[in-house]
């Protein structure tokens, strides 16, 4: 399903991202529908002080996947997507708190450190399939619950925002 890793288009985009293209416009422009907007203390932006990502841009970041049980599904499922810290890294975000905002305006604060300390996934695939809004898509913050007992508490479950649409770096 994924495009070849070294397609010409991707290579060109990488080169473009790597080249110094001015301080405020270091991030490439999204070509498709914007699925994630990062606001606040963002170093690299692509539209008026915010960093906007379409699904393709997220897909270009290194992908990780793991299988874990969650409170929201009866069985364990496989989640795939970029690591939260890679997403934050891509837009040069730095701060102490992240506010995750969902499509239904649900919001939750998570410590900025969480992205460094845990392999927090910005899941875009559920069992290798894109998630529709009605399936809690398109983006779902997922902690590796199965690998660390400490994560299996209400605190982390509440931080796992689904139908994610924006991140506010504070």
């Amino acid at each position, binding site marked *: 399903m994924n495009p070849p890793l070294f397609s010409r288009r991707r290579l060109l985009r990488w080169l473009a991202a790597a080249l110094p293209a001015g301080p405020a416009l270091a991030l490439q422009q999204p070509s498709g529908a914007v699925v994630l907007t990062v606001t606040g203390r963002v170093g690299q932006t692509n539209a008026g002080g915010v960093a906007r990502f379409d699904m393709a841009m997220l897909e270009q970041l290194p992908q990780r996947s793991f299988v874990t049980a969650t*409170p*929201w599904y*009866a069985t364990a499922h496989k989640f795939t997507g970029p690591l939260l810290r890679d997403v934050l890294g891509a837009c040069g975000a730095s701060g102490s708190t992240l506010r995750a905002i969902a499509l*239904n305006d*649900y919001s939750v604060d998570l410590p900025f450190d969480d992205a460094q300390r845990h392999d927090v996934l910005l899941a875009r695939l559920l069992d290798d399939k894109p998630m529709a*809004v*009605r*399936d809690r898509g398109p983006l779902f913050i997922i902690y590796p619950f199965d690998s660390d007992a400490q994560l299996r508490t209400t605190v982390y479950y509440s931080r796992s925002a689904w139908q994610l649409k924006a991140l506010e770096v504070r």
Partner: protein
Amino acid sequence: MAAQSARSPLDIDPVPAAKARERRRITLLWLLGAVLVLALAAVALVQARQFAMLKQSVAYQDDYAVLSLYQAEAEYLRLREYWVLAQHERERVDTVALQLRYDIWVSRVGLLHHQAIARLMDGNDEYTAPLRQMEAFIARADKVLGPNSARPLDLAALAALQSELDALGAPIHSMMLSASHHVSAQIEARNAAVRRHNQVALVLTLCLSLLLLAFGALALRQMRLLGERQRTLVDLTAHLREAQHQAEAASEAKSVFLANMSHEIRTPFHGLLGMLSLLRDTGLNTRQAQYLRTATESADHLLTILNDVLDMSLLESGRLTLTLEAVNLRDLLREVEALMRPQAQAKSLALHIDADPGVPEAVRADRTRVKQILFNLVNNAVKFSDRGVVVVDLRRALDGEGREWLEFLVTDTGIGMDQVTMERLFKRFSQGDESRSRRHGGTGLGLEISRSLARLMGGDVTAQSAPGEGSSFCLRVPLQAVAAAPRNVSGALPGEAAPAAAAPLRVLVAEDHPVNRQYMAALLEGMGHHAHFAANGLEAVQAVREQRFDVVLMDLHMPLLDGVGATLSIRALPDGASATVPIIALTADAFAQTRERCLMAGMNDFLAKPVSPERLSAMLRRLFGGASADAAAPAPAPAAAPVLLDRATLDAAMRAVSRERLAQLLRDFFDEGPQMVERLRVALRDGQALDLRVNAHAARGAALNFGLNALAQTAQALHEGATHVPAHEIARLIQRFEHLLRDSRVACEAAGLFEPVTG
């Protein structure tokens, strides 16, 4: 009877009561332990349940379920708003936004299927009916707004579904309310459960605290009991120690009483004995002599018993001390033989006394006590044998540890003993058997005393026997050989014929007992001496001050001034002649300390009561020489007297130096003699004991080199006696030395060792 019954409650055997108490205590402990375990288990159970409840709530918060329902309603309301807006705006309708709202709501409805919510609303009609209603609506709406719906938006279909959408409002709302009520009810239930648990926990904690207190009280009680027990033990120990002290003191007092009593009995008894012996010489007819013999035998027997009792009490009170001195063993055996042979002969028994060649000439021992043991053993052997032979064998033995022993074996061919008798043999008051003791008499203390004495010496007395095969007793003492032993200076054996001392002597007898005074008077006058009397110490001192006496016989126990005090006073008199009068202690007191005290006070010798004519005679002879003998022949046992000239030594000396040189040396020695004697006399006069010793020692060394044995022995006696032998004795020894010097010279000249000095 009344006293009996009154006492009985106190006399209950304490053991069962204590046991019952102990059992009750153990049961109580078990009970307490069981309650404690139960309480701990209950606490664990409560905590486990609380933990389970917590876990349940952690699994998925019911609050979140309510939140989901609430959000589902909110999203429904927003969707309805968009839905209405879309129909109003028609061409400008934002399809994407409507679809997004629709999808979000659908996702919320999907969440309502979640098992947590299902569990929360389980079996509730207000839940399942709206859910089915919503699902039916979504199935129809998906055709318009779902992922596979046709574009552009079918506004007619949208309008058609409007009423259906509106109809969902009421059930969704009531569902939300019902859930929130349900949840609050559940929360209330859970809180109630927690409260209940807390109450239980509180009760349990109370229980635990009580138990802890109970255990504490128990421990405290136990500690107090332990303390009490220890105090009781300490008290008991003190009590026992006190009791032991008292018992020991009582035993000691009894021993002392016994010693004193036997001593007290002996004093008048001596008078009796003395009188009996005097009666013998008063020309009795045969019948009277027979009576007298029987009386004397009885008295002797009684004296033996008294002596045994005294010895026993001394041994028991630990006041018997040994007087160690150099003892000539062969002399000792001769004395035993002299005493025992008449008895053996009277029973037609042969008596063999023999010493192995390996036995040393002299050993360090308590002469009197060794003799006492031997007398006892031999006496027993003679007593219990009716035929055959009694053998006394002296030998040297080496034990496994390399120590040397002296063994006196007394063997007889008598009736022997069986094992039972042997076992009782050394026990107090036990005799071979009753019939035998009647036949042979005795106190039954003899063997016990013998063994105690032997053990005091570091040895033992053992016995071997079989019935009909005779017995063998062995006295074993540690061998302490000494280089030389003085001849038995106490001289005459009891029973030996006693030639009278040089008579007449003026004798002062200080004695408070009239019977004893009479006895002593008869005794001394019988020997041809002049007896004077003093009834106490003061009179004695007065008498010595007023007239000259050759000797004073001093009783120790006298009123006003005792013997020791009187001696001290006499020795302190200004007149030299009076102050140096020989004083002989008279006492029945057998304590070694008494003897020591006498000598320390300045007495010259010691005469044990009863005073027999033989012993008195021997003592006087020792002090003043025999009636017919002069100072040149002082030795009481001429057979054993050392030779004037030992040829073997002289020959050896001659081999070392030339005959001429030896002659010269001998002449020098004899020429030097008068100066030597003079030096000894000066030392004696000036009271220079050390000078006396040094000179005597030098003389002895020289005399020994030349083989002048008699001379050497006298010099040695001077050397040994210099510090403690009384002056008149020393003077006598010096005189003897002078005579021997002359005799030895004559002997040497006679042997042709050197030419007599002419002119």
